[in-house]
């Protein structure tokens, strides 16, 4: 039976890759905006840091007091092993203080790139149009990975040139840093190559790769917190290897061998899995669903719940697991805090450092809650542009009803996710400390941030109504909150800059007690923005692609 013949035995290698060259050129053309935007963004990040840092910490002395905060356990949890912070310089501060965030951006860039050019193409049927031509079975995936490598190399060049040419950093360290960034990026391209084979849905494929990224963050957080320079646990994380090159300190290349081996193995596994399946199929089989719509599905609210629940449960589970881990780090921190210099208190602005840490974690989770809210609104935009919203709106469901019910579901989703995450963080803390008050404290601390998350949601809806193509702009609030909220206090940024972030306003529970006024103000802003968004949505054209 020819149907059972193995493809490799009958198909020559060149056939399997037929058309790769044309496809790579085509992918470059498709990404003509995305590629420069991502890589240029990374370069600008370097330039920004190089320009901004000296204005914040003009002298080595001031820099030393800033890095001291990073060198402590909580600092390491957030930024990495903290190489070179005993003798800080601007280049060390940029590479070892912000390197993790460069790596996360690179990882996200690669995950989205790979999923966009593989699974999304299959889901839309465009891959079929391509493959019906003289195109080898492995060619589209290979072309995608070539594009990923090109993109990462461009990013490395841009970042390297920015570091050496604009910031004036040492060449050797800049080179290690830039290449490490590319290696991490390619490692996550490998992760996405595998997850893209596992699910039929691009969003699930990206979500799985994102979960691996989250796990990589948590694993190295635990490892790096425990000791300066990291511990064995750190080395299990693909995010750690580039950091372990210790740019401008040790400048060692060999940890990148791990990134390369990891990338090669995941890419090989991805190719192997891809060769074993049909076009458009997945290794995780889709199960048949319900025969009939349940009664609840027949209402706008029921449908909104049904369409949003996957995203909601995914974010809720990810945040709860993260919370559990962060809560469980509390004990190790308590020990480490005992011999900390007083300067540390600045980070959390609190005397009780454990409470300060937990209060920061509640804020940190609120950033992620904001990210959830943006994805929920973006998927509503997806419902609109894909045309799926059209038949609903043609049925006797008003536009306002459609958007408002979805908004209500997300609003409730934000509350549930924050509550569950707070409980999980508290539970993690109780596990290691035995102090049961952490559970109600942290539930309250997380709920206290809900109105700030609502502001993000409200503004996202405002954009959806008034500037639908710019819905993704709501990410700026989340990113701004994260950067300013995490690094702002240490960098002595002006109060006005800090207060632009909605997340800066709720009281720092459990260090402080809940204050009602900021919560009411934030809620009012959220409601106002959402209301304008709803009205604008009713007035504008529906857009489908």
């Amino acid at each position, binding site marked *: *039976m*020819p*149907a*059972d*013949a193995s*493809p490799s035995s*009958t*198909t020559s290698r060149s*056939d*399997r890759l*037929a*058309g790769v060259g*044309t*496809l790579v050129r*085509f992918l470059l*053309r*498709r990404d003509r*905006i995305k590629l420069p935007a991502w890589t240029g963004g990374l370069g600008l990040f370097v330039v920004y840091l190089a320009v901004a840092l000296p204005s914040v910490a003009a002298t080595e002395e001031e820099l030393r007091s800033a890095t001291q905060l990073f060198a402590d356990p909580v600092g390491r949890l957030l930024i990495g092993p903290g190489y070179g912070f005993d003798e800080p310089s601007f280049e060390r501060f940029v590479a070892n203080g912000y390197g993790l965030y460069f790596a996360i951006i690179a990882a996200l860039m690669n995950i989205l790139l790979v999923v966009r050019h593989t699974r999304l193409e299959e889901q*839309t*049927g*465009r891959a*079929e*149009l*391509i*493959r*019906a*031509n*003289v*195109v*080898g*079975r492995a060619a589209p995936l290979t072309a995608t990975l070539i594009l990923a490598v090109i993109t990462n190399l461009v990013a490395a060049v841009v970042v390297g040139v920015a570091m050496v040419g604009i910031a004036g950093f040492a060449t050797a360290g800049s080179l290690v840093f830039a290449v490490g960034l590319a290696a991490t990026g390619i490692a996550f391209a490998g992760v996405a190559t595998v997850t893209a084979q596992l699910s039929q849905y691009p969003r699930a494929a990206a979500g799985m790769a994102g979960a691996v990224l989250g796990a990589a963050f948590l694993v190295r957080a635990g490892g790096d917190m425990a000791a300066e320079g990291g511990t064995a646990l750190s080395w299990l994380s693909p995010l750690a290897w580039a950091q372990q090159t210790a740019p401008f300190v040790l400048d060692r290349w060999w940890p990148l061998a791990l990134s390369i081996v990891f990338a090669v193995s995941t890419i090989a596994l991805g190719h192997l899995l891809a060769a074993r399946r*049909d*076009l*458009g*199929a997945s290794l995780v*089989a*889709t199960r*048949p669903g319900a025969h009939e719509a349940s009664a609840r599905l027949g209402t706008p609210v029921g449908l909104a719940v049904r369409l949003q629940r996957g995203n909601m449960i995914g974010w809720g589970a990810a945040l709860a697991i993260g919370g559990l881990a962060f809560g469980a780090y509390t004990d190790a921190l308590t020990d480490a805090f005992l011999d900390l210099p007083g300067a540390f208190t600045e980070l959390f602005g609190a005397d009780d450092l454990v409470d300060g840490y937990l209060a920061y974690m509640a804020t940190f989770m609120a950033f992620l809650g904001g990210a959830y809210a943006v994805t929920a609104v973006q998927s509503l935009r997806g419902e609109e542009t894909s045309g799926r919203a059209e038949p609903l709106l043609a049925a006797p469901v008003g536009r306002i009803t459609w958007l408002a019910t979805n908004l209500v579901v997300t609003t409730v989703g934000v509350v549930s996710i924050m509550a569950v995450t707070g409980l999980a963080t508290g539970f993690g803390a109780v596990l290691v400390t035995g102090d049961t008050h952490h559970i109600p404290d942290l539930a309250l601390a997380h709920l206290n941030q809900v109105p700030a998350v609502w502001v993000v949601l409200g503004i996202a809806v405002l954009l959806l109504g008034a500037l639908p193509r710019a819905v993704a702009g709501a990410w700026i609030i989340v990113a701004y909150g994260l950067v300013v909220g995490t690094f702002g206090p240490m960098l002595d940024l002006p109060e006005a800059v800090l207060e632009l972030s909605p997340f800066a306003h709720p009281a720092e529970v459990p260090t402080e007690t809940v204050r009602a006024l900021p919560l009411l103000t934030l809620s009012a802003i959220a409601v106002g923005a959402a209301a304008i968004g709803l009205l604008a949505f009713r007035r504008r054209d529906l857009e489908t*692609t």
Partner: protein
Amino acid sequence: MAHVITTEGLVKTFGSTRALDGLELSVTEGEVHGFLGPNGAGKSTAIRVLLGLLRADSGRARLFDGDPWADAVTLHRRLAYVPGDVELWPNLTGGEAIDLFARLRGRFDRTRRDELCERFDLDPTKKGRTYSKGNRQKVALISALASEVELLLLDEPTAGLDPLMEAVFQECIRDIKEAGRTVLLSSHVLAQVEALADRVSIIRQGRIVESGSLAELRHLHRITITVETAESAHALERLAGVHDLRELDGQFRFEVEGDHVDDTVRALAPLGVRSIVAHPPTLEQLLMRHYGDETDAPSSDSAR
């Protein structure tokens, strides 16, 4: 005549769904072969197996002289494909998409591309996101029709086209037939298959239930006769091979099996025929016969 496509006992399952259940299909060189079946019958699955995009569980498929899975790349040089539901890249123009397919396939007639754009009234400078379903379909059609290949695999290729464009499409297929090229045309637009196909294979639940020229198939099926007679024609109901006799505004309308036409006409003559109209079976009726009997009440089913 050489066979361009042959499948024997092709089976393809998706979990518990048997999309192809022993498919036997053969298409000979130079013919336009209609591939008819209702939604979910397995037409697209069969075509995807022939393209080497899906791998059959068992059975044999030959395309030209190769195996569709193992020799996919070589075979694709000789064919072009148009799916029923075309998605394009939002930030590329239709023209760019056509050229991409052309480059990926190799052989391509540039002037013919421009001529086809004109005939199909397609503006190739528009971005993919601005095209309607019909225009996206045109992009795939133009790309396939402009390529100088031996075989066209068309899977419900005109699903989004208006009647005017449908007519242009039919002209193009006739040109291709004249040039001696082969077409497999899957469709549920029966008029289209009637207008174009030399031979037809009817697929149902993953199996070919009927295959032959339109004339051969008609012979197997019923003719619809409408008569106006001086006397009541109710008695005809008792004749062998007569079905669904109904009286409507003083006219009688019934179906008669191909083999019993002679007897029926003889029985009609003494009744004083004032007018008579006979329709050959439409492909709708052919399909009804095959798919309507699932509920095992063909007479009441087809009496719509």
